[in-house]
Each structure stands twice: as C-alpha cells, then as structure tokens.
C-alpha cells in the first residue's frame, strides 16, 4: 500500500511538472514574435477585450499555431509510445509505418493536378485519403488467418515508405515550378495552418484519441512483456493489436494531413518519458502527450524567431534540439552505468 501511494505521488508530481512545462511553452509561444509586443502587454491583451492589431496578432496568429503545435506534438508522441510499446522496438516511430508516405503522395498528387484550387480543405483531405489507403493496404497485407502480424506490418511499412518517397520524386520531376514549391513546402511541415477548423479538428482528435488509448493502458503494459505472455494474462491480444493499430494510424493520418511531416517528436519524446516516468503506460501515455505538446510548441516558437523575420522549418529545430538532447542524456546514463 505504501509503495502504491508513493508511486501515485510520483505520478502526480510528473503530471504537474509536465503541465507546468506546457504552460511555460505556451507563455513563451504567446509572448515572443517579430511584432515585438512587450511581455507584460501580451497577457493584458489576452484577458482584456482590447481591440486592435495586437489582439489580432495574439489571438489569430500566435494562438492557433500554439494550439496546433500542442495537438500535433501530443498526437505524434502518443502514437510513438503506443507503437514502441506494441512492437516492442525502440526504433519504431510514427513515420516508420509508411502512413506519412501515403499522405505525402496524396498531397503531392493533389498539387500536381491542381485540385487544391477547388478548395483549401482538399489538401488535408487528400493527405488523409492517402494515409487511409496505406492503412488499408498494411492491414490487408498483414492480416492472415485473423492474426495481425506485427513483424510483417513493420516490414511492409518500411517498404511502403520507400515506394512513397520514390513516387514523390517522380511527381516532383513531373511538376511545374509552382507545384514543386508547394510540394516541398508541404513536405517540410509547418504549424502555420490558416484554417481554424483544421486546428480544432487536430486538437479534438488528438485529445479524443488520448482518452481512447486509456482504455488500453493495462493491455499495453501486458503487451510489453510479449504477445504470448499477454495472452496468458488474459488480454484479448488480437483485438487489442487491431484497435491500437487503427487508433495510431488515424492519429498519424490526421497529424500528417494537417501539418505535413514534422520529424523526431514521435521518436524522441517517448524515449525521454520512459526514462523520466518509467514504462508503466498508465502514466506514460499522458506524460508523453503533454511532453510532446510542450516540446513541439517550444521548437516551433524557436523556429519562427531564430532568424526572424524569416522562418525555419520546425523539423530543423526538433531534429537538432531533440536529437542532441537525446544523445546527451544517453551518454550521461552510460557514464553513470560504468
């Protein structure tokens, strides 16, 4: 009993720390920018009904970007945690399964054929369609005698990613200069989404899926021991695998369709959180979600301020910052172990 109480306290401590990190990142994101609004004024504007250009900058430009960053960061980290737990492979990340490749091909085709002129929503829609096609393909290819083969899923996923990147290369070779620009913009990934509906959708979907994964927290803990062990513990392994695969694929599909490819969040954040809070999925899921959200918001704010008024692709920051931080922590731990 004492042990359980201690553990709960530790979990609550981590949740509070991460919530503080999210708030800190949000405050940072809201208060810096090229418009040069003073720090104190930002919060006055945020809560008071003052009209004017500064209010518009904070509410219409910085806020949607902050919310989308939180949603996408959370979604990618959550997907990363689930996939790493399910495959019992620390190298799996949201983009390994080829779903992002499918989305990228969908969007590239859209741009090549000029469908995006019909309406702005066709872009994320075609991305999501591409993602769904890959999901169906993966599912169909690896479902044999009502058993979803995880090894097969991984291999076909990697292959689909290769095929997708070749297809994108082909599309790039065929397209005109303006289209080229559009495709490359999309592939680089950006959280600057002009459509408020898409921001809401991404945020709603990611939080909803977080809730949904909580129905599987104990199954995930059991699966971490191995499929056979989980079966002996009474986990309906096949059903769980299928549902988790669907949940993560949809999470990835939505995030990639809305914001393009933002690498590294889904790989590094779950690893970090495992080191910090431990491998129990009851806390790991929520912790990764919050940490991923805070991390991406922070990186995106850096990306848009480092070389202002120009912007860096956010993937540059997530890669450099996340990667080097991770290597640093890994080296330090190795040093301690010796």
């Amino acid at each position: 009993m004492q042990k359980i109480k201690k553990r709960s306290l530790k979990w609550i401590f981590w949740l509070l720390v991460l919530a503080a990190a999210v708030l800190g990142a949000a405050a940072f994101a809201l208060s810096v920018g090229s418009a040069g609004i003073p720090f104190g004024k930002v919060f006055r504007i945020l809560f008071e009904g003052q009209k004017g250009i500064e209010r518009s900058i904070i509410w219409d430009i910085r806020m949607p970007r902050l919310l989308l960053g939180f949603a996408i960061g959370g979604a990618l980290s959550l997907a990363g945690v689930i996939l790493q737990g399910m495959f019992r492979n620390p190298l799996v990340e949201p983009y390994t399964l080829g779903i992002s490749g499918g989305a990228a091909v969908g969007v590239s085709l859209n741009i090549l054929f000029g469908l995006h002129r019909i309406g702005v929503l066709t872009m994320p829609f075609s991305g999501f369609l591409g993602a769904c096609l890959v999901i169906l393909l993966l599912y169909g290819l690896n479902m044999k005698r009502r058993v979803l083969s995880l090894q097969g899923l991984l291999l076909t996923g990697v292959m689909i990613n290769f095929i997708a990147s070749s297809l994108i290369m082909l599309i790039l070779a065929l397209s005109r200069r303006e289209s080229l620009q559009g495709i490359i913009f999309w592939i680089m990934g950006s959280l600057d989404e002009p459509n408020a509906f898409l921001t809401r959708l991404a945020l709603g979907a990611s939080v909803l899926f977080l809730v949904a994964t909580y129905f599987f927290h104990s199954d995930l803990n059991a699966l971490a021991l191995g499929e056979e062990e989980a079966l002996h513990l009474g986990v309906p392994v096949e059903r769980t695998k299928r549902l988790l695969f669907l949940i993560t694929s949809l999470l990835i599909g939505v995030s990639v369709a809305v914001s393009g490819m933002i690498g590294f969040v889904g790989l590094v954040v779950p690893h970090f959180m495992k080191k910090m809070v431990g491998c129990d999925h009851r806390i790991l899921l929520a912790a990764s979600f919050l940490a991923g959200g805070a991390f991406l918001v922070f990186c995106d704010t850096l990306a848009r301020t480092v070389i202002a008024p120009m912007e860096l692709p956010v993937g540059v920051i997530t890669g450099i910052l996340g990667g080097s931080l991770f290597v640093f922590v890994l080296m330090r731990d190795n040093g301690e172990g010796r």
Partner: protein
Amino acid sequence: MRQSLAVKIPFFCFVMVLQVFCLPLKAEEGGQTPLPQKGALSQRIVSLSPVLTEELFLLGVGDSVVGRTRYCTKPAETDKIEVVGNLTEINVEKIVSLRPDLVLVIPLTDPRAKQKLRSLGIRVEEFPEAADFRGICDSFLRLAGMVHKEKAAADLIEKAKREVSRIRQETGSRQPPAVFIEVGADPLVTMVKGSYFHDLIEFSGGVNIAAEAVHQLYSREKVLAKDPDIIIIVSMGFDGEEEKRIWQGYPGLKAVRQGKIILVDSDLFCAPTPVSFVHALQGVEKILHAEN
C-alpha cells in the same frame, strides 16, 4: 487506487476535449482590420516581389511601401523599408504588425501565408510572373490601378513602347544573327517563345534558336547542331566564366570562332519592369550588332 486513477484521467481528458471546442479561435469582431473596398486607394503596401517593389517606386508611390522581401533592393531607397521575409518564406505576424491595406504576392509565396492573410481581412493581390513584354506592361498597369497612378503608368509604357519600336525598326534591316541564350547550366536552361528573354532577342533583331522548343531544358547537342552566331550567358546562380570555358571547348561553333560568347549581368535582365525592359533591350541590341 489503480481503478480510481484510471477513471479520473479519462474524465480529465473529456473535460479538456469539451474545452477545446468552446475555445474562441478568432478575436472578436472589430479586433480585425477592416477590409478595404476594392478600388480604394492603398496607403500601406507590403510587396513580396522585387519587381513589384521596383515598379511601385517607378510609379512614385515608394513611400507607401511598408514591407519588402530581402531581395527587394532596387532602388536604393528600399533599404529603409522593413524586411518581412524572402521570396518563399514570409512572416505573417510581421506583415500584420505593419498594418498593411494591400499585400502584393507572387505564385511562389507560401500558399498558407496567403490564405492566412486573407482570412485576417487583408487585401492580398497575386501577380503572376510576367511572361513577355506585353505581360510586363499589363501587370504594370494593373499595379498602377491599385495605387491610382494609371496616368503615370500609361506614360511610362508609352515611352517604353516608342523606344521598343524605334529599336525594332533600326535593327529590322540588318542581317539577323542566330542567338542562343543560356540562363541555367547543368542542366542547360534557355528561354523559349513567350518569355521576355525571347522578346529581347527578337525585338533587337536577332533570332532565338530555341524559339520553337517545347521545354526550357535544352541540350548541348542541339546548340551544336543549330550553330548560333552568338551565345549569351546570363549567369543566375551559376559560374558564367566556367560555362564560357566549356563552350570554348567546341571550336567548331561559329560563336566560338568569332569570340561571341558574352557574359551579361543578371541584374540587367531579371527585373522585368517596362523601364528595365527597354534598358535591357538597348543592352542586347549592342551585343547583337556590335562591330567586330
């Protein structure tokens, strides 16, 4: 304990989902800049194209330009104007903070940024890259309409057209040299019919050997087969001297024998306003009809 936590966390999340959909994602009405009427005179302009910036100065409304790209460096007065990005990446927040009533964009501008600016109620006008001399004039007139300088624009265009027809008449009677114009190396890129480079050559009494090519990509083989009298290298982001040396490796070419491989400054060619077009045309005329 375990059960209660498993219940509490999802409940907490549900509350969060509810909140997400209740969040106001837009500032209330009146917090936005009012949408100016079409045809209203624009006083604060952000120009995201070097050509348009230069043209605004030509029209005498340079002081209403409040934002530019890094590459808008002509005329010199532009260095006092705030930079809001480069050609493709622009900073929406910076633009909004400048309170523009007109933002001029090009097809290369980030589509998301264009959409965002429009959704904030800012007038955004896109100017496709002008293909030829006629396109340059049309685009110039359209821009002039937005700043109510139609008269000034018409005068400038009239002057440019007079100069163009003078040069055409003067050079029309001479023997037309065959010209190959190179604007990109590795792969070799040229300019075909319907581009202002093509117009520059034809108007100054030359023949563009790539006029009928379908694609701007050209091969060295074809250049050797057509054997032009003059090769003009407009170095845009590649080493023009190196290219010149490569061409000199083909002594069979007429242009090589006559020493007619000419490097030109890309600045002269790459800002297609009616004024700079005439300027470039005078330059090309000199190149094409220089006495040996």
